[in-house]
Structures are given as structure tokens and as C-alpha cells.
């Protein structure tokens, strides 16, 4: 793209550039999610002196599941068949409008923090309903636990991002990311640090990682998210797994972009998008490796201690907002 064209594009973000950017984000999240989970599995395995499955195992599993015959549990209603679609669909829409690669996504002003947080919540609720629908003990138990945790983590997530919205004076996520790029001093302000601590706790809880949930176990006493997927098989399971992986990559990408926004494209050119893609991959991979290393050395919390951890995150988020309102 020549200089004049780039300037023109910067002045008026063309629709096709925005569509391309959003599509690229969805593809990046859909492919990146299983890869990030594979990377974390690999890091954990290496730290435990095992070889571990290849990083691309998640993608291979998805390909295998899609080809399998569609089987549903007996006595399930339409809810069980709709839940994977809603989970995957909400993850796709959320990754299209969140500022992961660019600050100008397909819907102008569509990356509002309330929209993104509640799209993610919609996916969680759909999965919980799906887990309940088959009427098995494990599914119901998993759903009940997931909703117990979600009831505290969801408001904490909202309030933590709200603390940044107060400082950026806009509730749109692209606006917040663009604001941080313009004012890097925000990143060291007290409210930003408090919000980072709160968000880190919430993202761990929302994605079901140690110490809140252990994704690599099927132990009935401890599992939360895995329990809700037990009744799914074949293409349905592939949709649920893909949706969960996308949520993971999306939350990780949102976390790194809110606190380390460099690399996100604001010039709306294709070349900048590709740079942003590399930057996002590097940033999220680094974060995933750090989380995996922490997981290896941490034990899962008792279920009854989890609300304490999340309530702590909520207080941090509230402190961030109040600090942001008063200390300007």
C-alpha cells in the first residue's frame, strides 16, 4: 500500500479492511486457542520431565471429533444441541469485536466492554444449561459449581475493565486500547495495577485453570468445566472444545492487550495487521508459558476456598474503580 493510500485508509477505515481484520481475529483466536492450550500442556510436561503431546494435538483432536458420528445422550432436549452452537457462536462474535489485532473492528463501536463480557457470559450459561440437560449427576454438579464461580468472577471481570474505562473515559474496548497506546503513563497508575491483579485472578477462574479448576483431570470431586462436557461427543464435543479454547485465547489476548497494548494495529493497513498478529502470538504465548509454569508449582484450591480468592479479586476491582474515580 502506498503512502497516500495508507493515509486515506487511516482517515476513513474502509469496510473491507475492517471485515478482513475481524475475520483475521476470529481465525487467529480459533487456531490460536488450541495451540496455546497445546503449548501450555507441552511446558507443563517438560517441567515434569515428560515429553508430552505435540503442541498441535488440540487441532488434531478437533479434526478427529468433527469427522465422528453425531451422538446425543438419551432424553436430552433442544437445549443440549443448542448449547454448543451458542457457546461457539458467542466466542466467534466476541473475538470479532474485541481489539485483539486492530482497534477498528467490523462493527464500529461494537467492542463495548459490556457487550464482550456478556457475550462471554452467554457462552458460560449455555454450557451450564447443556451440562444440566442430560440430567446426569456430574453434569449438574459441574454446572452448579461453574455458576457459583461465575456469579463472583463475572462482576469482578466487568468492574476490573470498568476501572480502565473510567480512566479512558470510554466503555469501548478498542477505545481503551487506543487510549493506552496514546498515554503509556496510564499503565503504571495505581488503578491500572489493581485492575491487572483483579483481571489476572478472574481470567484464571473464567478459563478454568489451576488453582480454580484443573483442566487435565476427570476426578469427580474436583472437576468443574470438564464435568459439563461429559455428555457431549463427536461434532458437538468439537464445538464445545473449540468454544472453550477460543474463550481461553480471547481472555488471554484481552488481558495482554489491555496491559501491554504495543503491537496492536491502529493504522488500519494490512501490513500492520500482520505485525499485530505476530505480536499477539508472541505476547499470548509468553503469558501462557508463565501461567503453565505457575500451574506446575501450584496446587488446586479447595472448592470452598475459591469464593475467597474471587471475592479478593472483586475487592481489588472495586478498589481500582474507586481509585480511578478519585485519583485523577
Amino acid at each position, binding site marked *: 500500500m502506498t503512502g497516500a493510500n495508507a493515509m486515506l485508509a487511516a482517515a476513513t477505515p474502509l469496510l473491507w479492511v475492517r471485515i478482513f481484520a475481524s475475520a483475521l481475529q476470529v481465525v487467529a483466536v480459533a487456531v490460536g486457542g488450541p495451540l496455546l492450550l497445546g503449548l501450555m500442556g507441552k511446558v507443563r510436561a517438560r517441567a515434569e520431565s515428560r515429553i508430552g503431546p505435540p503442541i498441535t494435538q488440540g487441532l488434531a483432536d478437533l479434526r478427529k471429533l468433527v469427522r465422528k458420528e453425531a451422538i446425543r445422550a438419551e432424553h436430552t432436549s433442544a437445549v443440549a444441541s443448542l448449547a454448543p452452537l451458542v457457546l461457539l457462536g458467542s466466542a466467534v462474535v466476541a473475538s470479532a469485536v474485541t481489539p485483539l489485532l486492530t482497534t477498528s473492528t467490523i462493527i464500529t463501536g461494537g467492542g463495548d466492554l459490556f457487550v464482550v463480557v456478556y457475550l462471554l457470559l452467554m457462552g458460560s450459561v449455555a454450557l451450564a444449561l447443556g451440562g444440566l440437560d442430560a440430567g446426569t449427576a456430574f453434569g449438574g454438579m459441574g454446572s452448579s459449581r461453574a455458576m457459583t464461580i461465575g456469579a463472583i468472577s463475572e462482576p469482578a471481570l466487568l468492574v476490573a475493565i470498568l476501572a480502565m474505562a473510567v480512566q479512558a473515559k470510554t466503555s469501548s474496548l478498542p477505545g481503551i486500547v487506543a487510549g493506552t497506546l496514546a498515554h503509556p503513563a496510564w499503565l503504571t497508575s495505581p488503578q491500572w495495577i489493581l485492575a491487572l491483579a483483579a483481571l489476572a485472578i478472574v481470567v484464571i477462574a473464567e478459563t478454568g485453570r489451576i488453582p480454580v479448576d484443573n483442566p487435565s483431570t476427570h476426578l469427580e470431586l474436583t472437576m468443574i468445566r470438564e464435568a459439563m462436557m461429559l455428555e457431549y461427543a463427536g461434532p458437538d464435543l468439537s464445538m464445545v472444545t473449540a468454544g472453550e479454547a477460543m474463550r481461553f485465547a480471547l481472555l488471554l489476548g484481552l488481558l495482554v492487550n489491555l496491559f501491554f497494548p504495543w503491537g496492536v494495529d491502529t493504522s488500519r493497513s494490512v501490513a500492520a495487521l500482520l505485525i499485530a498478529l505476530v505480536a499477539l502470538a508472541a505476547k499470548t504465548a509468553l503469558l501462557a508459558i508463565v501461567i503453565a509454569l505457575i500451574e506446575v508449582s501450584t496446587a488446586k484450591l479447595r472448592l470452598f476456598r475459591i469464593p475467597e480468592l474471587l471475592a479478593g479479586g*472483586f475487592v481489588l476491582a472495586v478498589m481500582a474503580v474507586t481509585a480511578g474515580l*478519585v485519583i485523577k
Partner: protein
Amino acid sequence: MTLGFSLDLVELASGIVLATAVLTLWRKDLRALISALRIQGIALAAVAAALAFYIGDAGIGFVAVVVFAVKGLVIPSLLARVVRTDPGSREADPLINVPASLVVASGLIVLSFLVAGQFTGLLSDPVTRLAPLGLATVLIGFFLLVTRRKAISQIVGLLLVDNGVALVAFVLTAGVPLLVELGVSLDVLLAVVVLQVLVAAMRVRFGHLDLDQLRELHD
């Protein structure tokens, strides 16, 4: 050190004072409680030291040294010794469970911002906007005092109240005179020493530190 940087440091250290106050409600381990108190004392000293640069008053620098010595070093080590020598449980057992107390704490923080907002607006110095953080620390200290059973937790609550009052004094009046701070710090130190003796006597007499069980009179 530039003026802007020292102001940032005052803000950050005041934030740490409040964050450690929340930490005392969050963690159940008594040793973690005392570590939080130690960090809070050091952060309070940092507030005073940065204020000394910000205002350009050497007297507050001396206050910072006193605060660091008394609240950052001596009192936490005294308390740590009590916990170390206590054969009983090292977990605080709160009357109100942790998630509920944390939610109450966030309510107290919002309340103190609302209340303190009434008078911080009267002063023009940017430092005075930090007064709600100190007020919230005082309120959380009171909350700790009324909801904990263990003697150690109650001492920590009392010290939180004292640290909160000190923070409010620092940011509103731009530091207190050295003599006053010296008097207050020694007062608190004396109170902690007396409480430590009391705790030791309690352990010898009753074998535990649970204040709720002290219902009958003994000879």
C-alpha cells in the same frame, strides 16, 4: 527525585497501605497477616519519605525513619514472635466468612471515598485526594477488630486503625510534627508490648488466645 515522581510514589505507597489492609481480611494465616502489617508499615514510611521530598521538609524525613523503625520493623517482629511461640492454631477464625468480609471491605472503601470526597475537595493539593485511602484503612481496621476472635488479629486490627489515622494525617496536613509522631509511635509500641505481655499471660493461664472463650472470671 522530581516533584512528579515523588507524587507518584506517594500515590503508589498509599495504595499499598490500603491493599495490605484488604490483605489482612483476605488471608487466614496469622503469619501472612503479620507480613501484610510489615509491608503496610514500610509503605507508610515510604509515604512519609516521598512527602518529605514533595514538600521539601526534612522533619517529615525524620518521621519516616521513626515510622519505618517502629511500624515496619519492631512491631511486626514482636507480633511474629508471639505467633511463633504460640502452640495453638495459626489460622484466624473470623466470625464473618472471608468472601463476605471482603464484600463488606469493598463497601467500606466506597463509603470512605464518598465521605472523604466531601472534604478533600476543599483543599487544592493533589496529595489530599489520597485521604479516602487512609479512612478506608481505619474502617477496615475497625471491621477486623469486631469480627475476629484471636487476640493477634485484634492487635493487627488496632494497628491498622493507627496506620490509617497516620496516613490521613500525612496526606491532609502534609505531615505531622516530629514530636507528635514520635509520641504516637511510642504509644503504639507500648500498647503492643503491653498486649504481648497480656497475650503471654493469657496463654499461661488459659492455654489459648481465643477471646470468645473468656466468659468466666478466674482468680
